[in-house]
């Protein structure tokens, strides 16, 4: 265990933790929103994210960048990024809606057991991963460098680069928009109503099927935007990228309190930071084990997470 790296790079690790946390947040919101309305963990949400990365890759491919050019000028970059984010958002959002219809809807109507829904979700998840694995021939897909990542501001060991700023600022904007949607629109009201009490919501005239579709759409869109950030930041993807990123995002949602939007945010940043710091000390290989341990600990000790209420007994 090497604490020296941790100490010297404390702030830069912290910054990276926030950046990674922001990306996780965009994905974990999908888990938490769907859980809120369905009381079900959307296992295949990680693949919705993966699909977003794939569509971002596909878009970039059309531009013919080889990755060896100079990074783009700022304005051009912003334009292209917005395009990426929009396309990914649409593709992921649409995939999410389709996923709900194919894998979940019928089971919900039939009031099938929880076990059945889980199995259907897992099946869907596997199908998606495998389809893309076959399509991409199991290869890593690399993104060209679109933006100049040289740090434009340093403070000690803290390096502030454009891509990090992009993620943080972009995510913040998204969260503000989301907050508006959840708290100040009819859709948000519907989502909150169904999350709290589906039966009453129905009695109040809420079209639950539509709300659920919109919730999936919203989660998918967020994941899609997150995937665009992911691609700019990490510059690579493959068919099973969803697995590890998904576990992290899911853990973040549970840590914050699944079903709770605020919780998903805090949980994501907290997890991002913990991951960075523990990686510095224990080494990168153990990052996912640490994440998993956190998940287990939260579920065993405080299943409602930091902010969640006992939506349903997590403990039997």
């Amino acid at each position, binding site marked *: 265990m090497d604490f020296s790296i941790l100490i010297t790079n404390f702030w830069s690790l912290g910054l990276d933790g926030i950046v990674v946390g922001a990306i996780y947040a965009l994905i974990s919101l999908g888990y938490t929103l769907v859980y809120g309305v369905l009381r*079900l*963990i959307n296992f295949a949400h990680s693949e919705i994210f993966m699909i977003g990365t794939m569509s971002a890759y596909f878009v970039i491919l059309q531009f013919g960048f080889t990755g060896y050019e100079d990074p783009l000028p700022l304005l051009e970059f912003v334009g292209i990024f917005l395009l990426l984010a929009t396309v990914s958002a649409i593709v992921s959002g649409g995939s999410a809606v389709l996923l709900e219809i*194919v*894998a979940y809807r*019928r*089971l919900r109507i039939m009031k*099938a*057991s*929880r*076990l*059945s*829904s*889980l*199995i*259907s979700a*897992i*099946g*869907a*998840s*596997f*199908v998606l*991963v*495998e*389809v893309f694995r*076959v399509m991409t021939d199991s290869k890593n897909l690399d993104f060209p460098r679109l933006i100049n990542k040289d740090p434009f501001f340093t403070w000690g060991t803290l390096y502030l680069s454009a891509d990090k700023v992009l993620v943080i600022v972009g995510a913040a904007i998204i969260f503000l928009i989301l907050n508006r949607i959840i708290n100040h629109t009819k859709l948000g009201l519907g989502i909150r109503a169904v999350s709290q009490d589906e039966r009453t919501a129905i009695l109040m005239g809420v079209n639950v099927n539509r709300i659920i579709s919109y919730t999936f759409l919203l989660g998918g869109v967020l994941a899609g935007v997150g995937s665009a950030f992911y691609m700019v930041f990490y510059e690579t993807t493959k068919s099973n990228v969803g697995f590890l990123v998904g*576990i992290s995002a*899911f853990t973040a949602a*549970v840590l914050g309190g699944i079903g709770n939007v605020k919780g998903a945010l805090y949980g994501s940043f907290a997890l991002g930071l913990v991951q960075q710091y523990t990686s510095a000390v224990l080494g990168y*290989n153990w990052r*996912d*084990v640490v994440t*998993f341990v956190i*998940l*287990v600990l939260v*579920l*065993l000790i405080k*299943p409602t997470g930091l902010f969640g209420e006992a939506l*349903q*007994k*997590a*403990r*039997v």
Partner: protein
Amino acid sequence: MSGIKASSLNLRNKFGDWWEGANAAQRTIFRIVVIGVFFALPMINNPIIDTPETSFTSVLFYPLIMFSLMAIGLNVVVGKSGILDLGYVAFFAIGAYTHAVMSIHTPLNFWEILPFAMAFAMLAGVILGLPALRLRGDYLAIITLGFGEIVRIVAVNTEAIGGAAGITDIPGPSSVFGIEFTVMDPRTYYWLTLTLLLLVIWGVLRLSHRKPGRAWEAIREDEDVAEFMGVATLKYKLWAFIIGGAVGGLAGAIYASQIRSIQPEMFTLNLSIMILACVVFGGMGNIWGVILGAVILGYIPEKLRFLSDYRIIFFGLLMVVMMNIRPNGLLPRQKREKFQEKSK
């Protein structure tokens, strides 16, 4: 689709009627015949059932009988007790590695190692189960998934047991009753596994028709109410894990002894999912359905080799489709309303 359902139900009912009417002698003869057929399978040399690329006898061993054995084990956990375990491959891996390591580093032979392989897998079941089984379904499923992955990651990162390269030159079972176990001939392994499978089936059936079986099913049906009715749910869930683990470990040890070299990448999440698909497809909780599922799902990708690359897609789709159309599987656990008590 409903035509198939109707005719298979008819077939089943007809069989059920016959079974009910048959006396002990007739039933025993039937059992002997069926078992005999399974034993005779490796002898069949028919181009119709032959599998391209791998010999039929090899396929009989893996995946057919291996999947069947593991599916029976997983069935106790998922099918009977309703606990979604996504990390079943962990028990398989532990059994395999136990045999691999012990056969090389200790003077014990396969038969002597077998109990250890099962014991370690059972222990793993307890270690996983004690914390995990207190959690509700979705969370439990994720924990089990993580467990399966962690076992694999540990195997990759532990040089003492071969690391990513795995272990090679694993000896096979020493001969018993004059029967040699060579690499070239999968038939002996098949027969060995078949024998053990029959033993396991016997054991599971015995448990199913008595208190443990009722407790497990009650847990699956409504765990809270099972508790209200005095069932010590945690204890029985743990037992389900232990039994599932024992069977998985058994399968793993045999597998390692046949294939003679193992690597961590053989024990992936995909395998857990495939076994789960067998249970789901065949009929959750129903032993015969599960075996049927294992046989079909094991055989088809081998027979139709072009499917092989898309095997996982096939399994995944199958799971989604089955849950939506026929959640109870091909042979649902339909208790025969008339004969249930007689055949025990």
